[in-house]
């Protein structure tokens, strides 16, 4: 008897394509997406893009630039794409602010004269400036570390010891007093706790490096805007596809036949559904961001215009996408399977779950095909980078274009219900 129950379950599952897809295909696709994102990073570390400014233009600074350009973990750019004019500190900062690179490194004027300092000293010469976007916390660590690595390849105490030995040997010999002082310093360095040794990006590091976050300086909760947008967009997609399924319910219940027997055309009906889904999406995003503002101190005031523009464009694209998926499906069960697969996939690739800067560069580029990646980009421009409203033009154009394409596809797909 129990065997019959098990058999019946498997027979039903085998004939229910939607349930089969949800059981086997969705997990595999989802696993593959994450394996592509994170698995690829194991085989080759993703390069960190850094805008490089050489204010010194000395022999030493040029040597450093050449060395950094050879560094395989960095993608060093000295000028913006398609421009010959090299970065200066201001343009490099603007570049980071615009989200085109997570960090910029400025080699200060005077670096060549005082290139390397051993040990703590008040007179440490001009400091390197690392201008960073803290939404990518990994990038500035990588750049700082690789800068030190490039400048020096050994531990500082060893470097000092070697330097003392070299001085002793080739400089005519040290006095006992000098030897005692140097030995004391080496011992001090060796005795420093590990926690202090790691503070190499600030303070008494071997390289005088000042790190400055140039984006979101006043925001104490830096990535709340990103997550509010990421999660908001993902759930807007879920609810848009779910609510778009009302169209299939209309077909199944016969209300579509009834509606089309009135003075309402399919085009009007679709437009009405789209606007309903759009208003629903707007309300969802508003609730999400208000919650983020109230509970997580997201700075909504001052960003209202940008929020309104991005919310309107994002909700439009998500609504049209949901409508298209519903129109492409034959049943609610099929829609459920397709939408789960589609929404989870594009949310993962578009950056709703994992920030795109953590993905390999190839996947980051591929992700730009997805409309939700542009939505998140726009929200980041508003809430994180504090960019002016004209920075939203491209994301909005892309989102509206996708919305139009989705709507036209939905219109085409619904013709089958109109006149047989």
């Amino acid at each position, binding site marked *: 008897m129990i065997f019959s129950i098990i058999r019946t379950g498997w027979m039903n599952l085998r004939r229910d394509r939607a349930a089969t897809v949800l059981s086997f295909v969705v997990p595999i696709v989802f696993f593959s997406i994450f394996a592509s994102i994170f698995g690829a990073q194991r085989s080759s570390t993703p390069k960190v893009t850094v805008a490089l400014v050489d204010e010194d233009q000395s022999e030493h600074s040029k040597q450093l630039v050449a060395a950094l350009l050879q560094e395989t973990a960095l993608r060093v750019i000295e000028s913006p794409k398609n421009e010959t004019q090299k970065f200066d500190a201001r343009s490099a900062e603007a570049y980071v602010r615009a989200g085109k690179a997570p960090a910029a490194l400025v080699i200060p004027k005077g670096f060549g004269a005082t290139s390397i300092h051993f040990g703590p000293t008040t007179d440490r010469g001009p400091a390197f400036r690392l201008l960073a976007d803290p939404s990518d916390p990994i990038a500035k660590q990588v750049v700082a570390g690789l800068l030190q690595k490039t400048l020096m390849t050994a531990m500082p105490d060893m470097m000092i010891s070697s330097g003392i030995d070299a001085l002793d040997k080739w400089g005519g010999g040290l006095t006992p007093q000098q030897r005692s002082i140097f030995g004391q310093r080496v011992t001090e360095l060796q005795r420093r706790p590990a926690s202090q040794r790691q503070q190499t990006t600030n303070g008494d590091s071997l390289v005088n490096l000042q790190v400055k976050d140039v984006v979101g300086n006043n925001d104490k909760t830096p990535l709340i805007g990103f997550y509010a947008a990421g999660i908001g967009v993902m759930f807007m997609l879920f609810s848009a596809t779910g609510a778009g399924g009302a169209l299939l319910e209309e077909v199944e*219940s*016969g*209300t579509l*036949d*009834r*509606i*089309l*027997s*009135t*003075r*309402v*055309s399919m085009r009007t009906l679709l437009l009405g559904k789209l606007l309903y889904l759009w208003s629903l999406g707007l309300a969802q995003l508003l609730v999400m961001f208000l919650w983020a503002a109230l509970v997580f101190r997201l700075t909504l005031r001052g960003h209202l215009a940008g929020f309104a523009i991005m919310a309107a464009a994002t909700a439009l694209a998500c609504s049209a996408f949901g409508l298209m998926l519903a129109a492409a499906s034959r049943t609610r069960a099929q829609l459920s399977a397709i939408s789960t697969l589609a929404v989870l996939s594009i949310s993962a690739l578009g950056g709703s779950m994992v920030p795109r800067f953590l993905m390999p560069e190839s996947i980051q580029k591929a992700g730009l095909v997805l409309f939700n990646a542009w939505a998140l980009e726009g929200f980041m421009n508003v809430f994180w980078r504090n960019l002016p409203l004209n920075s939203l033009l491209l994301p909005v154009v892309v989102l509206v274009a996708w919305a139009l394409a989705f709507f036209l596809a939905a219109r085409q797909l619904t013709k089958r219900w*109109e*006149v*047989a």
Partner: protein
Amino acid sequence: MASALEVTNVVKSFNGARRALDGVSLELREGEVLGLLGPNGAGKSTLVRTIMGRVAVASGEVRIFGRPAPSGDSAAREHVGFVPQEIALYPLLTARENLMVFGRYQRLGGDALDAAIREALEWSALSERADEQTKTLSGGMKRRLNMAAGVLHKPRVLLLDEPTVGVDPQSRERIYAMIETLRGGGVSLIYTTHYMEEAERLCDRIAVIDHGRIIALGTKDELVRSTIGVRREIIIETTDGQRLTQLIDKADEMLPLMKGVEARGLAVRDVTLRVPTLEKVFLHLTGRELRE
């Protein structure tokens, strides 16, 4: 009597398969109730959908009050109402809200919409349940509301697709009364049903469709004469519950039949002589073979 609706030589095939409508011609006269009968798959629904403009026909024409009504032309069907077989309502909306929605879809508004909703609720005897969610109404109430939603714009032609499916006798009587009210108001109706007694009771004329063709059309008496002739149906019931049915040409054939029953050792309990029912006509025309 003028024509409310004319269907002329309509042909429709789906995916190159057998013709769903194979040269159908039909006339609905003003103020009449025309029954549309046919086995499952005979072409009834396709014909109704054609009249509603939802089928692109290969050839033929539909005219409504003399005006051509090509498929997809909703303006040409402004005087046509449609009550689908399904309960095509929003279950979470109240009865009144459903009527409001479908009234607006018919471009009604303001006082005209309010008046139409009030009349429709009274007509369907749902005024007292108007503000309850549709999903909480009984099957019969939903059926009546389903009809009410189709008449808000006061159509002059109404297509009713099996409006009494699955309702109890009381609700069915109420639906019959609603239809009589419509007929009294001069509305022309096409009434699709599988219940023969319903067609006999309500319809002025009956069209039988099979294999995409109208195979009989006329009043019930005309259909009987044209198919079975002037013969009558005799039903002899015996005391042990057996039932013998036979067609006879003359009344004097009754006695030998009754004697034959008694000769088999059975006692006659009741004898009925009647004009053959529409069901008899229907089975005569379409056969007893299962269609699905």
